[in-house]
Every structure is written in structure tokens, then in C-alpha cells.
């Protein structure tokens, strides 16, 4: 047992570090940093994110695990993790490419046509064009296969109609990946098809949605007779569910070993700065018990990440147990934020940057963390996955499995 780098890993890390040192500014570990769902709608931020991605691409640090022919480096997952670990120690623009690079690119590599791969993967890797994921609908979130946006074949095109929602970054994306229903008479999972969609197509309307933290990272997107060429179809007609599963599986593999752990030091500092009964709050035994509990959870997550990395390092593929990270990490982040806000007493109820401790960052995090527990699979869905796929307990009872989609109930029976 040894969690130092192997010689090759150490050499790779040193090389990454040297490049980052020369090209970015290090983070001050004592400075409380950012809100986990940093807002992404500002133009300057997008310009700087694009510039940073192009710089990485040109120096050979972008999409490290992708094959060289698609603009990657043909590297290992371990190398990619090492680069990300090092990069997290530097100030870099918010990650607007996670969905494209982590989920959509791999989907094109698995199911796309040779033309789609040639046309899109390299520009995606270099970050010239941003991609978004158009899956969820008002009536289809956890139950994604219940989606009702449609596409109907018309010559060499498909004509799309309907609505998507919670589409992160749709307002600054050039491309989207969308799943729609092409056969309402088939069973729920059988009638779906997957497309690449040009977000500048005629008939698309994008409306930002305001979140509880005041930001608007996501949107509702409406489609009125939007034409999509059949050459943009990914996978066979009716095979969209299988293609979408590739996207969703990659969502889980987006590993962040050790990345959620920076916040604890700042929380500790806050507990020293905040007062309780005229004394630093950190002297209060109830506060100490709670802090200790959070530290242990956070350490557990960190070393669970290391165990996953060890498996990767030995060439094994991480399984559904990877869901632990989000199932535990998201509620923990919310608890940390809640504690930090509570420790400030009545002042915690303000967001005033000058008056609060740590410039209102914890209030921002407290408002943002409920979103993490929902996005990319809710707490409950993750627990279902752990129960069913890891512990092999029986699946949920399903009332909609074998009926044609048009007969699936969508609400309470009308009187």
C-alpha cells in the first residue's frame, strides 16, 4: 500500500506542474474560494475560459484521455486526474467544458459516425465551440425516458418540436445533444432517438431561468419545427436510450478525487473567527463535534477517491460504486455551508460581503448546494443506483414498462 505516485506518474505530475507554473497563477490556500456552481453567463468569463482551453490544447494538456486523432493526447485516466489535481491548485476560469468533454465527446466517440467525429471532436477539445446537454424536460427528469419532445422524419431532415429544461449553458453553446421521441407507439425506452443539434438553428428559443442563488446557469429551450439533418443522428433510430446511457455513465466517471476537500480548512478558519458566548465558536463542544464529523466524512470521500484512482491506476474500470462521491458529497457540502452560515449567528442571515465572515461566500454556497443534490441524478436516484447496481437489491416496481408510451399515465386520474 503506497499512495505516492509511481515513477511515471511523478514525472508526469512534474511536467504538468512546470507547465502550470509557467502559465497560470497559483491559488492561495488560505483564501476562501468560490461558489461551487459559479455563474457562467458572463461574456468575459467565457472568453477567458475559451482562451485557457485553447492554450491547454495547443500545449498538449486538453482532453488527455481522448485519442490523438480527435485532438486528445491518447493518455491514461490517471494522467488526466493528475493534471486536474495540479490544475486545481491554480486560478483558472470556471469549468464550462465539463459536459462536452466529460460526457458528450465520449458519446460521439462511442456512437458517432466517422464524419461526426471528424467534424466535432477536435473543435470541442480545443474549446472553440461549447456544447450543452438537452435531456431533461418539464415532465422528464429522474424519469428521463418519459420525455415527450418529438422528431418526425421529413426527407433528409427531422423536424423537432417540444421543450427542454434545466439546460445548463444552452445560452452560450454552439451545439447541443438532444434526445427526443421518434415513436410514441413504441414502449417508453424504445421510441427515442439521439441527435446533435446546432443551437443556432431556426425555431430554437432559449430563455434563461433564474435560480435560487440569483444566477442563471440553466435555461428552458423551446423547439418549433426545428430542422435537423439526418446526418446529425447519433446511433440508430429508436436507439436513443442506449446512446443516452453512454452519456449518463460518463457523467458518473467524471471523477474529482480530493477536489471537494478544500472547503474544510476554510470552515475551520471561520469557526475560529466566529464568536459564541464571546469566545471563538471553535471552543464550543457542539461545534467541535459537528466539525469533527464533517472532517471524517470529507476524509472518507477523499480516500474513497484514492481507492478509485488505485483501481484506475491498475487499469480497472470503476463501477457504479462511484455514485458514493455524489450521494455523500452533495449533502455534505450543503451541511458544511449550513454550519458556516449558522456559526455567524444573526449576521449569517445577511449576504453583505463587508459584514459577513468570508465575504458572504458561505451564504452563496448555502444557496447553491441544493442544486448539487439534484443536478446529474438526485440523492434518491443515486441511492437507488447503489441499492440496485451495487448491492443488487430488486429494482423499483414499474407501472409503465410494457405499455405503449402514449398510454403511460402522466398525472392523477381526472375526476
Amino acid at each position, binding site marked *: *500500500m503506497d499512495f505516492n505516485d509511481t515513477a511515471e506518474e511523478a514525472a508526469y505530475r512534474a511536467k504538468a506542474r512546470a507547465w502550470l507554473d509557467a502559465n497560470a497563477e497559483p491559488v492561495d490556500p488560505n483564501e476562501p474560494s468560490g461558489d461551487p456552481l459559479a455563474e457562467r453567463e458572463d461574456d468575459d468569463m467565457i472568453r477567458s475560459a475559451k482562451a485557457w482551453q485553447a492554450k491547454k490544447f495547443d500545449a498538449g494538456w486538453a482532453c488527455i484521455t481522448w485519442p490523438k486523432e480527435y485532438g486528445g493526447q491518447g493518455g491514461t485516466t490517471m494522467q488526466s486526474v493528475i493534471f486536474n489535481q495540479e490544475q486545481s491548485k491554480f486560478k483558472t476560469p470556471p469549468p464550462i467544458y465539463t459536459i462536452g468533454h466529460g460526457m458528450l465527446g465520449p458519446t460521439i466517440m462511442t456512437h458517432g459516425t466517422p464524419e461526426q467525429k471528424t467534424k466535432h471532436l477536435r473543435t470541442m477539445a480545443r474549446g472553440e465551440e461549447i456544447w450543452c446537454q438537452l435531456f431533461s424536460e418539464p415532465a422528464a427528469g429522474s424519469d428521463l425516458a418519459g420525455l415527450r419532445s418529438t422528431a418526425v422524419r421529413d426527407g433528409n431532415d427531422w423536424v423537432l418540436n417540444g421543450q427542454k429544461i434545466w439546460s445548463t449553458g444552452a445560452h452560450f453553446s454552439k451545439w447541443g445533444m438532444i434526445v427526443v421521441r421518434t415513436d410514441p407507439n413504441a414502449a417508453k425506452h424504445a421510441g427515442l432517438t439521439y441527435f446533435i443539434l446546432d443551437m443556432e438553428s431556426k425555431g430554437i428559443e432559449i430563455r434563461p431561468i433564474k435560480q435560487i442563488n440569483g444566477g442563471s446557469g440553466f435555461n428552458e429551450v423551446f423547439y418549433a419545427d426545428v430542422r435537423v439533418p439526418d446526418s446529425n443522428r447519433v446511433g440508430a433510430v429508436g436507439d436513443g436510450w442506449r446512446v443516452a446511457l453512454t452519456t449518463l455513465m460518463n457523467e458518473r466517471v467524471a471523477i474529482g478525487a480530493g477536489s471537494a476537500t478544500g472547503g474544510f480548512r476554510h470552515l475551520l478558519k471561520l469557526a475560529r473567527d466566529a464568536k459564541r458566548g464571546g469566545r471563538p465558536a471553535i471552543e464550543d463542544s457542539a461545534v467541535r463535534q459537528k466539525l469533527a464529523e464533517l472532517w471524517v*466524512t470529507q476524509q472518507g470521500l477523499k480516500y474513497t477517491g*484514492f481507492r478509485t484512482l488505485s483501481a484506475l*491506476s491498475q487499469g480497472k474500470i470503476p463501477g457504479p460504486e462511484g455514485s458514493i462521491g455524489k*450521494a455523500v458529497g452533495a449533502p455534505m457540502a450543503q451541511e458544511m455551508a449550513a454550519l458556516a452560515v449558522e456559526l455567524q449567528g444573526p449576521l449569517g442571515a445577511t449576504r453583505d460581503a463587508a459584514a459577513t465572515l468570508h465575504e458572504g461566500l458561505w451564504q452563496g454556497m448555502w444557496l447553491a448546494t441544493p442544486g448539487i443534490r439534484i443536478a446529474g441524478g438526485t440523492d434518491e436516484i443515486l441511492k437507488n443506483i447503489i441499492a440496485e447496481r451495487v448491492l443488487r437489491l430488486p429494482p423499483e416496481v414499474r407501472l409503465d414498462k410494457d405499455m405503449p408510451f402514449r398510454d403511460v399515465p402522466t398525472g392523477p386520474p381526472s375526476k
Partner: protein
Amino acid sequence: MNFDFSDDQKLIQKTARDYLAQHAPLSVCRRVLEGNERYDAALWKGAAEMGWLGAAVPEEYGGSGLGHLELVLIAEEIGRSLAPIPFSSSAALATEALLVAGSEAQKKKLLPRLCSGELIGTLAVAEGTGDFDVATPGTRIEGGRVTGEKLPVSDGDVAGIALVLVRDGSGASLALVDLEAPGVTRTSLESLDPSRSQAKLGFSNVPAEIVGASGKGREIVSKVLDRAAVVMAFEQLGGAQRALDVTRDYALGRYAFGRPIASFQALKHRFADLFCAIELARSNAFYGAWALSHGNDELPLAACGARIAATDAFELAAKDMIQIHGGVGYTWEYDCHLFYRRAKLLGLVLGSASEWREKLMTRLEAREAA
């Protein structure tokens, strides 16, 4: 990065698992729990013959010279089988105390006997209700003789020697006491888990020798506890995993409302939470094992993480085990209470999780201040 045990280490674990599956089914734990034996002497002998008691003891002192990574995996199997033997008291606490602080002569004399199982050892620190770690012990040593009372002492009624924390002038020292010596009284206490015994030890002018530097008793005990906490965390993990496995099988076989109870989402989510708790505890324990085996300065923090997470996970597993079994889980006849008792006992004998959380904060603050 290789944050995992080696194939050789896993083989040692598998051998231990197979041995215990054959020699320590739960009926063995139950026999000790229900009867008058304080531990299973045959199993103790077997554990010694398998080389488990001295897994981390160098060969020159009669051990098998493997290491702590092997010791913790054996502990996990002891935990899984709920083996009714004084393993943690003797092989973790007393043995580690001698390894950490014993003189060459003490190690030469005692470690071979501890490894062979002919001698059982324990550590006696607590004095009545409150924390395990007493600030100023009432038990004292004067002119090489110990007087006072320690309670509870794990396996104190079956041990032949105890390392006793005593007041020594203005400080505290660790004293080695022969429990067969005149002036020692041993009283068995009714244990919450009678498959692991507990006792009260009285000392009246009993001859003793100091282990380690005089006046450094608390520092030594703190080190020994960290090491034992990591070993015990694996014992707790083994118990927790077994509780989860047994409960899962039960829930798949038990039907209500025309379906297996394992299909009810309320129970599935309980299982998922438990799985997460056990895996996070395992990760914390792995880190502890790494720090322990590498003699790393991270051990004081890593040990806290391992102790707290493993204690919480085993207690959750044991509680859920009864709940998910329903009425039969509350019967003497079913094995759930064996786990419920063992989880609580292990969760307290080295100090409660809240005592360790407090210790963790003190250590974290000291590190931040450094």
C-alpha cells in the same frame, strides 16, 4: 498510486477468513456469550498457531514479522466472525504498548509469550465513568508498588499482565503489572457483550516495573491508542460488513405484501446509506493502516478518522440489522443482538466516538497552528 493491499496480504486475509469460517461460526460467539467461559480457549490457541497474535511483531521477539497491514486484515476477519477472544486487548493494546515503549528486556521476555497466546495482556487506563483517557490517574506508583483501582479493563479477568497508567510523582507513567501477583484483585463485570469480557482490577501495593520513560505514561498511552484504534477499526469494519451481508440476504428472502422486503425503497435507501457509511469508514481505515505501517506523522489524525468512522458504521449496521429483521431481530435466538452488542462494546472500549471527535479537533487545531 496504489492505495490497496497487495495480493499476498489479501491471501493472508483469505486464509484467516476460511479458518474462522470453519472454527468460529457465530455459534462459537454465542456459546461464550451464553455460557460461563470468558473466551474461547481453543480458538485463542488456533489464532496463536496461525501467527495472528504476533503478525506485526518482529521475528526476534517471537512474532511472524509480517507487519501492520497484515495485522489489520486479520483483525477485519476477527471482526467479521465476532470471534470471542481477547484479540484487541492482547494483540493490539498490550503488544503495541510493548513495541512502542518496552525495554529490550521487557520485549524479549513478554512478546514471545504474547505471540504464542500463552500470556494474555491488556491495557488498564480508565477509572470509572467518563473518558477512557484519564487526565490524572488515581492509581499511583510509589517505591515500585502500585495501589489503586482500574475499571473497566477489557479482558482484565483473563489477562496475565496489564499495562497500567499510574500517577508517578507529579506525572503519569505506564506500569507493567503481573496480574497473578499477590495484592491484585480481579472482579469480572457483567459485559454488555459477554463474548468479550470486562473486569475491575484492584491493586494493593503490587510490585511493578515502569515501561518507557517515567512520567511519559500519557504520551505512550496516546500512541498505543492510535495504533489500536486503527487495528480495531478493521475489526469494526469486518463486523459491519458481515451485518450488512447477513441483513441483505435476509431482506431478499423475506416477503411481505407479495414482494421481498428488500424491494421497498425505504429499506433500499437504508441499505445504500449503510453501504456508503461502510465504504467511507473503509477508506478512513485504509488511510489509518497506511499511516500506521509507514510510521507516518499523519497517524494521530488518521487514527481519529478511522476510529470515528468505523465506530459509527458498525453501530449503524448493527442497529439497521435489527430493524430490517423485524420481530425476529429482537429475539435472543437470532444473531442480530450479537452484532448489536459487539458494535457498542468495540465503540466504547477505546473511548467513545465523541471522545475521539474531541481529540481529533485538538489535533487538527494543533496542526493548523503549527
